[in-house]
């Protein structure tokens, strides 16, 4: 149970959040707090509501009244640009219909800071340039976004979110469909943002091993409900995962960093 005092210190709080696209709720009775500076992974089987939860927290989807709060203020009470300088959200789908250049995409993160009809100024370019250095995409600043690889696209999107200068970054499956090298690259960048700049990160993730390796805290969803939450070692347990994923698993531990490897048992 969440007490009032705990809720008031949280950066983001979901209180009794239930949400449905149609009739059938995708999320039910969610109570969750996210503290400043946390690195949280949201895990769970396909269709358990990970993406939807991120979109509600990020204000992409309209949440029912009095259910989602940022700094104790309901999300709908923020102006759109006000919320955008606090929370950035990075989508999973990165298809783009038009061939914007990488620099154009990164500069889009400056939108909430600009008034209508104004062009980006020196400051905006400096901030975008630093963000691109940080995610190592500066060398293809002038290439078309549609022509770069999946891992590069993800780094560009992160650079765009960085130039938005938010306190919280929400990432929907940032490592899916990427090779291991790029997965580690992306997560290392995020780790750096979390540790050095104290950004709060909330990631929807599929890969349980990467989740245990990088996240400080995991939230496990099943059929729209929070099944359990806590440090990775407390969430990634055999009996919990077998119930949630409905498959027999074995869990191995990496001796070096203590990360957990979950593999299905042969049936």
């Amino acid at each position, binding site marked *: 149970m969440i007490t009032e005092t705990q809720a008031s210190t949280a950066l983001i709080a979901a209180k009794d959040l239930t949400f449905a696209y149609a009739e059938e709720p995708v999320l039910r009775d969610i109570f969750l707090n996210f503290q400043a500076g946390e690195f949280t992974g949201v895990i769970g089987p396909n269709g358990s509501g990970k993406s939807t939860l991120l979109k509600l927290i990020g204000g992409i989807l309209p949440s029912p009244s009095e259910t989602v709060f940022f700094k104790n203020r309901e999300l709908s009470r923020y102006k759109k640009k006000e919320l*955008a300088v606090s929370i950035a959200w990075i989508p999973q*789908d990165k298809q783009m219909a038009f061939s914007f250049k990488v620099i154009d995409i990164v500069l889009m993160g400056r939108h909430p800071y600009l008034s209508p009809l104004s062009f980006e*100024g020196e400051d905006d370019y400096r901030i975008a340039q630093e963000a691109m250095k940080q995610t190592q995409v500066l060398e293809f600043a002038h290439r078309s976004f549609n022509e770069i690889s999946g891992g590069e696209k993800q780094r560009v999107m992160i650079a765009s979110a960085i130039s938005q200068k938010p306190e919280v970054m929400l990432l929907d499956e940032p490592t899916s469909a990427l090779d291991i090298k790029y997965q580690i690259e992306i997560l290392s960048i995020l780790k750096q943002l979390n540790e050095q700049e104290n950004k709060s990160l909330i990631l929807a993730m599929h890969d349980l091993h990467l989740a245990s390796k990088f996240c400080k805290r995991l939230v496990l969803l099943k059929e729209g409900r929070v099944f359990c939450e806590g440090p990775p070692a407390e969430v990634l347990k055999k009996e919990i995962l077998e119930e949630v994923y409905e498959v027999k698993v074995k869990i191995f531990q990496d001796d070096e960093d203590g990360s957990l490897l979950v593999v299905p048992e042969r049936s």
Partner: protein
Amino acid sequence: MNKLNLTTMSSRKFTLGIGPFLLLFLATLVLAPLIGPTSIDIGKALSGGLDAANNVDADILFLARLPRILLGAVTGAALSVTGAVFQALLRNDLAAPFTLGVSSGASLGAVIAISLNLNFTILGISTLSIAAFAGALGTMYLVFGLVKTRHGDFPTSVLLLAGVTANFFFASMVMFIHYMADFTQSFRIVRWLMGGLDITDYQTVWSIFPFVILGIGGLFFVSRDLNLISAGVQSAMSRGVDVVRTQKIGFIMGSLITGTVVAISGPIGFVGLIVPHIVRLLIGPDLRLLIPGSMFFGASFLILCDTVGRTLIAPAEIPVGVITAMLGGPFFVWLLKRQHKRGNV
């Protein structure tokens, strides 16, 4: 490693992007009136007064050709900017006032106004224009209302299909009204449906000019919001864009300027499809450049098409809508094929 050159999007870059299109437009505006089946003496045209009996050259230049060219400019600019904005809002370069059924909706509105003999003006605006605007806006609501999903997106392939269906449906309604009309109305309807810039005067041009400028200005005002939407609706939301407001402004202003020019020039197809596409290939998808670029290039494009139309088989004339359709049909097929290859449709 190649040197990085992060020049800021300054007025310099803006001028470099738009400049060539502005120059093209000015050149077209100066040269097109000199071309025509009757050659005119420009010196003589400019020297004398506007007395038609004494100065035939001036008469042709200032009373026959120039208003027509100005109407072409306003019409081409309006349709092209609308196309650019619709394409951004729907993230698909097949979207245009014509392919979404907006043009034919405006036509239906105008034909209804003609058949009901609504010949008066309200606050200086002709009922024909109001009916065309209502038709354009009504079509937008109809097509989008049919296609909109629960999550508020518009699956583009379905949307285009609905647009094309609306096109056929309204065309048959127009034919029905035409069939029921009496002889005088029938003549007016046929004349209007042929589309064209040939019957016009300065007063007509000035009566639609403020609406088109207002509409284009309104769209330019939200051009950066449109940029973000064209890169992804949900990403745009997370960057602080008021998506619903921007969509409303885009669709209403687009319908306003489309309805306004269609009421006068009749249905002229494909301009809104071709022009933004060419401009985007030349200067990129940034709406802050694409809107003014499409405005100038669209104006020049329609003037040139009409110049070809009135000189090619002179003294007879080909309506400008026929020229744009002959260029636009194959262009649309090419675009469709290209999109199909990329897997977007």
